[in-house]
Structure formats: structure tokens, C-alpha cells
């Protein structure tokens, strides 16, 4: 990647990213948010976490490369869910997830 391509990529991606990160906040900031909007905003965290998890774990063609490569992360997910519910700890969840996934891939 040349310096020119690098600058174009950095500037365009950097600016669109900054706009997405900052604009919605400043559009809503300083206004009295109606109760309905507040309620809708409250659904963003569960919906976003669910979308992020689904994006990492699920794909229409996930079993195309064989059963185990797609099932191993799902099995590791079960381990993470158990640890997450027991400890509520992000750190333990991450450690468990990586260890479980690595062990499952060794099988």
C-alpha cells in the first residue's frame, strides 16, 4: 500500500468513523429526550450485544467447511455463558472463551 493510498484510506475512513461516532450524540445532546425515544435507546445495548455475538458466531454457510469448525465456537460459547452468569466477569469470560476454544480446536 503506497503512502498516497494510505492517506486516502486514513482520511476517508477516519472521517466517516468520526461522523458515525460523534454526530448522533450531538444531535441528541442538549435536548429533552421524549420518553419514547428514551425507551428505544434503552433497547440499544441488548440488541447491539446480540448483534455483535450473532455476527461473530453465525453465518448462513457456517457448516460448509465441516461440522466441527463451526460447532467449536458454539461449544466454547456455552462455557463462556456459564462462567459469565456465575462470575459476571468480562476478564474470566474472555480467558474461558479463548482457553475453551483453543482446547476444542485441538480435539
Amino acid at each position, binding site marked *: 500500500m503506497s503512502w498516497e493510498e494510505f492517506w486516502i484510506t486514513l482520511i476517508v475512513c477516519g472521517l466517516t468513523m468520526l461522523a458515525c461516532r460523534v454526530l448522533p450524540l450531538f444531535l441528541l445532546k442538549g435536548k429533552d429526550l421524549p420518553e419514547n425515544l428514551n425507551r428505544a435507546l434503552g433497547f440499544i445495548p441488548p440488541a447491539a450485544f446480540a448483534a455483535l455475538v450473532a455476527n461473530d458466531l453465525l453465518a448462513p454457510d457456517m457448516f460448509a467447511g465441516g461440522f466441527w469448525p463451526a460447532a467449536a465456537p458454539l461449544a466454547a460459547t456455552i462455557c463462556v455463558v456459564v462462567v459469565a452468569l456465575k462470575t459476571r466477569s468480562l476478564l474470566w469470560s*474472555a480467558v474461558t472463551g479463548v482457553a475453551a476454544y483453543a482446547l476444542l480446536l485441538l480435539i
Partner: protein
Amino acid sequence: MVERSHIKDSFQAAIPIMLGYVAIGIPCGILCAAVGLNALQVFLFSALFYSGAGQFMIPNMYLSGSPLASILASVSLVNTRQMLYAASFAPACQNISKPLAFFFAATVTDESFGVSTRKFEEGDWSVDRALMLNLFSQSSWTISNVIGALVSGLIDIPLQIAAFAMTSIFICLLVTQKMTDANVVAIVCAMLGVFACKSFGLSGPAILIGALIGVAVAFAYASIKAKGRPSGGGEALPSDQDGMRTSGKGETHPSNEGEVRP
């Protein structure tokens, strides 16, 4: 200005993110070096663009020979999900200064959004702490990326496994959400939405569209449930029983008490 105890709070909350960013930041730097980016360029990407998904996509698409315009479009599309995080933090940022709000919003990622959202719900959290959490995370990401670019070729981290650290963080954040019926509706619909998007070849905006579907359906569900109440009042107060608890979430959500403290 910034209290010492706040720095400690932020650092402790940032530890899982920072370790996760080491695990995926080094491979990201290695990948960037593979397309000819040097340590300075990798540093600039991490400091000014700061997007895990984006910084993996750029070298990956470049290696596969995609034209620059399509790389820019795809990366920008994937990052539209950040709009949701910004909107979600709006109630917390109502009474803070513009520069603080700007720097906080400009440094939010998937992971720091998750951790700060949880911290705001638990209480005893504020935007200045959330900003420091973002900056600790970004430092870890940036340093790891630069290390990756410098050591490329010397070490090899199995990325598939390392990236599962992030997935695990999202799983933990997901399953520790309050499982009210409206939240469960949001979760199920968001997951189905992501799967549907991917099935139609829309993997770029899948997270944004899936999450929006989850929010919309859960909102409709909560509204219908509120209307269907026998109380006859129409405008249900959020303080009453069962499923409507979710409507109160906006209030328990950040009231930025921490900010008004001296």
C-alpha cells in the same frame, strides 16, 4: 480535575479490554505490515481511525486485490454501527461539556461501549471515567498494533483463537443483560436480523441493521404491551410491574451523577 480514584476505576474496568486488544492488536499490526504499512502508518491508523474491524478489513481487502473505493465503502459501512452507540450514550452526556462529550464519543468502540454501558447501569460511573476507559483501551490497541508491525514475521498468533476473546466479552455483556421479556425480544430479533442480513449478502451493515431490527421490534412489543394494559389510562407509567420494567431502563441509564460532583 480528574480524580485519582476515577483513574483507578477506569483502569480496572479497562483491563479486560486492554488484554483483549493485545491479543488481537498484535496480529492486526502483523497483517498491516504484510501490505507494506510501516510502524508509523499503523500508529496513525490506530490513533486516528481506531477501529478493530476496520483495521483488519483494510489489509485483508487490499491483499485480495479489492479496489480502493470498494475498501473505503465497505469499511465505512461496517462502522455505521457506531451511530447506535453514540445515540445510546446521549442521555449520559446531556449535562457535560462539549469537548468532553466529543472526545468521549470519538473514542468509543464495541468493547468500550459495552463496558461503559454496564458501568452506567451499575451506577458510580461518569463520562470522564468512560473517556479514560476509552483512552486506556486505545493505548493498548495502538501499542499492540505498533508492536505487531515491528515484529511481523517473528511471531505468529492464531488470530481465530485470539479474536474469540472479543466474542467472549460480547457474550458476557449479552447474558448479563436484564432478561425482561422486551429485552429478550430485542436480543432474539437482533440475532435473526444479523443472520438474515448475512443470508442476503449484506454482511457489511449486518450489525447495524440487525440491532435496529431488535430495537424496533422490542419497542413495538413494549408499546403494544403498555397499551394492552387494563389500567385504561393509555399512557402507562414506567414504574409499574412486569414487562414494562424495560421502559424504565432509560432512566436508570446514566444520569451522570458523577459529573456534578465537585
